[in-house]
């Protein structure tokens, strides 16, 4: 990684089974006749990286979209930092969302803005008391941290896939979120860039003291980042544990999942 601050490739274990920052209880969500999530319950504890594994279509992305209420669940409760997400009004929801960072699978950089403007956009609107100088310093610092200091005035279309993911991560962490939600952070990237992104996830956890849910089907990413793992199958929690328990599992589905990606 170029200028990026060196980070561990193994997730630091900050979890001391402290307070849960996200509590999901009996969550169900369906689309038309298909039920995607079925009575799903899970907790994310302060400072931990929780990896949610599962096949495509198992409901992983729907889960984190429900957490930030991009989707409304059909049933169940989601508590984020003690607040019931589904009962918040628009204003309170906006306040809560300021504490959550969401890295989209596609990166979702604003393609009509430069990288600098992409980072300034949430910063100016969320931290309104910052001066011009402070904004510039913060943007430069965060870009430096993700190894993109030289892309300040570039457009997203001028960046490679991996650089776009890093820029998107920079835009997410620039507002100092407490919780990070990563939607397939390494999908579509080469193994080297995937490793860089995994290291960045650990770096963000360490530096910004975030608690994260990492949605992935990339075992290498899970190995590098997970403190705890949950496997989803057909919208239900199939298995929960640490990575070692998953790797030593004799269950056919788990074995096939891990074997195929060796």
């Amino acid at each position, binding site marked *: 990684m170029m200028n990026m601050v060196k980070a561990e490739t193994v997730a630091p274990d900050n979890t001391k089974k402290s307070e849960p920052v996200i509590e999901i209880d009996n969550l169900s969500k369906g689309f038309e006749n298909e039920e995607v999530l079925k009575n799903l319950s899970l907790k994310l504890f302060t400072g931990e990286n929780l990896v949610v594994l599962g096949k495509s279509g198992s409901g992983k992305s729907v889960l984190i979209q429900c957490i*930030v209420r*991009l989707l409304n669940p059909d049933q169940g409760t989601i508590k984020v930092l003690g607040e019931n997400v589904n009962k918040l009004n628009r204003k309170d929801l*906006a*306040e809560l*969302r*300021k504490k*959550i*960072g*969401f890295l*989209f*699978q*596609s990166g*979702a*950089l*604003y*393609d009509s803005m430069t990288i600098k403007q992409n980072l300034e*956009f*949430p910063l100016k*609107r*969320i931290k309104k008391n910052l001066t011009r100088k402070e904004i510039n310093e913060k943007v430069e610092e965060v870009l430096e941290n993700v190894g993109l200091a030289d892309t300040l005035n570039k457009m997203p279309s001028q960046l490679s896939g991996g650089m776009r993911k890093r820029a998107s991560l920079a*835009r*997410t962490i620039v*507002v100092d979120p407490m919780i990070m939600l990563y939607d397939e952070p390494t999908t579509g990237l080469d193994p080297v860039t995937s490793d860089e992104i995994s290291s960045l996830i650990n770096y963000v956890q360490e530096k910004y003291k975030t608690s994260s849910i990492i949605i992935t089907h990339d075992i290498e990413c899970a190995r590098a980042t997970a403190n705890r793992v949950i496997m989803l199958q057909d919208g239900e929690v199939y298995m929960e544990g640490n990575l070692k328990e998953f790797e030593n599992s004799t269950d056919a589905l788990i074995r096939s999942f891990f074997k195929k990606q060796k």
Partner: protein
Amino acid sequence: MKKISPVIGKILKLEVVKKHVIKLSEKTIEKTQKANLFLSELADFTLFLTRTTKEAFSLDFEFKEFFRQCFKIGNKTLPLISITGIIVGLVLTIQSRPALVDFGAVFMLPGMVALSIIREMGPVFTALICAGKIGSGMGAELGSMKVSEQIDAMEVSSTNPIRFLVVTRVLAATLMIPILVLYADALGILGSWAGANIKGDVTFVLFFTQAISYINFMDFFPAFIKTFFFGAAIGFVGCYKGYTAGSGTESVGKAANSAVVISSLLVIVIDLIAVQITDML
């Protein structure tokens, strides 16, 4: 001929009735689904309209983006409106002149053309061009932002996409279209003067003075007011179609296309209503 037994006859009749009932219920279900779809679309649009109107009065108005959109709308449509304005005036003059000559009323040409341009041609042509150019642009731009999750990214980072993307665009369209209409009107009269000079010789000052002398406040004012509604309709429909685009690249094209179709239709409907109201005054 062999006679069918009464029992078989009854069964056959029952079968026919059954088929008709099934067909009828299928059609009813289909129509109900269509009505449901229309009503839910209408409800969504009303909610979108309400939220946008509410956000328009927010204290955190995005001035920079608003001025950027104003510039974009003007810059995008100016060449097209210039050409159309001149051609409309020119064609209207060339077409009307022979009839007016026949009636010995050629002196009325500047006034008649100016009246047509200011009351109807200028506003409607400009609005239709803007519906095509701006409406489709908004639909496609917001649609692609929706598909590439950029709008969701704004939503989850608490940066209010309605305020930043929709309010600025709707207000820019509402403000810029009346200005573009005034510009198109002026160029239409200029084109008309050029048309009058093809088969005659009249100075611009004389032509313009004659044209203006036929126009009173009530010719200009209602026609100008309706252009604000044209602008708002184009902005709202373009943004709504883009903002609510589905997933996949196909939906971007669909959003742009339906933005043009619906906003063009709305322009005509608003024009009809405005004419009726003006007529009552």
